[in-house]
């Protein structure tokens, strides 16, 4: 036991003496979360739009004010007859132009329909789609509430949409679980594999193996500090998520921590596996970034929906541990479900952990022989 605490002491000294490690462990999680949460924001606010009102009546004015007071849009330009639409777009002043046809109110009352045109700048297709959706939603809503109140339409079907578990459609709800997966992968798997392969590179691993320390003690000694630090990071990310971004934890907090613990164990065993393959720090880093970071970001469903991927990638995504972890975390945090609904994902993570440990032991034995 004394041997072991001495080993831990040394590991913590390594960590605290290396500025790069410190940055990755303590700063990166916070910066990442704030970046994804605040800067890379898929929600639209204050997008500038242009209004081309050819009829200038009460209805068009009311619709315009509804649009502008929604919080999504700001008036960027008011167009007059003869203005070149393309010119306005090219100058980049507005993202969308709302055009009301002539005699809008009159034709609405007389014929029961009127024309609004939404022109959007689709050089950024995502934004264009979201803007037009928001705008048509607001316009339809207005017409239904204000104009069709007294008119009885036969057999009308009203669709009522409610976004469950994330009513505000906040993208930070998606990012928190994703970033947790990413950071834990980074710290647990990458840092462990680098720190073990550093001993190999420096020649100190041989000395440790020739000492009375058992291999299992060496591995545990290398892994334990990162286990602790990952756990602290998990807490930090969750706290930031809850208190800065208002992400709820509807399920059990203890269950959430238990699942995070499982994921950390999985990532640590993956890190050990990488270090049994990598001869030096460079290779360990390379494998970690290529085999862990990119797939975590691209294939785990964290940013890009898995259902939209081509099928070979969809199949590949099954092998990505973060994919399952993100499902678990979203379920616990946003839906408040218990083990009943995520036992399958939990088992998959356990199985992966088991496989990584088995492979590591096998590789380690080959090396010793």
């Amino acid at each position, binding site marked *: 036991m*004394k*041997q072991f*605490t*001495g*080993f831990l*002491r*040394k590991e913590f*000294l*390594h960590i605290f*003496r*290396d500025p790069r490690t410190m940055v990755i462990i303590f700063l990166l999680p916070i910066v990442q979360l704030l970046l994804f949460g605040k800067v890379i924001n898929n929600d639209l606010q204050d997008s500038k739009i242009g209004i081309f009102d050819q009829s200038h009546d009460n209805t068009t004015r009311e619709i315009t004010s509804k649009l502008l007071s929604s919080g999504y849009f700001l008036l960027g330009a008011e167009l007059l007859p003869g203005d070149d639409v393309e010119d306005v777009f090219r100058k980049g002043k507005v993202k969308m132009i709302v055009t009301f046809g002539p005699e809008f109110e009159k034709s609405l009352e007389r014929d029961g329909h009127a024309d609004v045109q939404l022109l959007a700048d689709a050089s950024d297709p995502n934004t264009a789609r979201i803007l037009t959706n928001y705008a048509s939603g607001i316009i339809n809503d207005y017409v239904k509430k204000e104009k069709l109140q007294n008119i009885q339409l036969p057999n009308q079907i009203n669709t009522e949409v409610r976004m469950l578990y994330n009513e505000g459609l906040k993208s930070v709800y998606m990012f928190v679980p994703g970033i947790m997966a990413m950071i834990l992968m980074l710290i647990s798997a990458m840092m462990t594999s680098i720190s073990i392969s550093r001993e190999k590179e*420096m*020649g*100190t691993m*041989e*000395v*440790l*193996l*020739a*000492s*009375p*320390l*058992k291999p299992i003690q060496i591995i545990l000694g290398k892994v334990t500090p990162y286990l602790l630090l990952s756990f602290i990071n998990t807490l930090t990310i969750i706290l930031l998520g809850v208190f800065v971004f208002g992400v709820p934890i509807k399920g059990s907090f203890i269950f959430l921590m238990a699942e995070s613990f499982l994921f950390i164990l999985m990532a640590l065993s993956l890190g050990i596996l990488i270090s049994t393959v990598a001869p030096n720090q460079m290779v360990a880093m390379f494998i970690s970034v290529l085999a862990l970071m990119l797939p975590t970001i691209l294939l785990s469903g964290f940013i890009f929906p898995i259902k939209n991927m081509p099928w070979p990638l969809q199949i590949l995504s099954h092998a990505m541990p973060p994919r399952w972890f993100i499902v678990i975390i979203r379920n616990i945090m946003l839906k408040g479900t218990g083990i009943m609904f995520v036992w399958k994902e939990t088992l998959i993570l356990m199985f992966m952990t088991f496989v990584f440990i088995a492979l590591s032991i096998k590789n380690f034995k080959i090396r*010793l*022989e």
Partner: protein
Amino acid sequence: MEKVIEVRHLVKKFGSFTANDNLNFDVYQGEIFGFLGANGAGKTTAMRILCGLSSPTSGEVKVSGYDIYKETEKIKRNIGYMSQKFSLYEDLTIAENIRFFSGIYGITPKNRKAKQEVLLKNLDIESSKDSLIGSLPLGWKQKLAFSVAIFHDPKIVFLDEPTSGVDPITRRKFWDLIYEATDRGITVFVTTHYMDEAEYCNRVSIMNDGRIEALDTPENLKKKYSAKNMDEVFLKIAR
């Protein structure tokens, strides 16, 4: 004299490649045993087996009286090992390195402090106790690494090319340390590329293609191969 290493019919194969082909030798307590051979001759493999870092394919090996197959743990308590790279942590200070390695070998803090003082005094680096290893000159590092490798008073210390890349004067000083260690009764098992260092050994073995081609004192070897120095002996055997 007491045998501290006994090797009988040691064979080590990697697939179809035979790295050690039927090695037989003894090492006696308190001697400096030189283990020579060209690169790839199999000396590192044999040394790793003796240190318990690798297990033999067949043969009997006893280190410090313990069986290499069954009593690896006991062997490890009784040996010191210094690898080709310094084997100290560059980002830790001298004192921290000593503390770490003392901890591994179960040396009590009280004992450690007393021994640390002697060590620092011997190497004349008392004032650098809290300097990071990485900031020290190469010669110091090597001497320190050796001193730390024998800090727990092992019966045998294994040195894997300890002086590669060091200037002649530092090498000479390093060998002074080795002599001091043998005076304390520590057996030194050393691999080297430098033939002048072979002259410093009590006995040397010369390996070629996985076999021990010659094993004797430097004097006898020079007589036997009618050579002026160990360099010539080595070239005659390795060719």
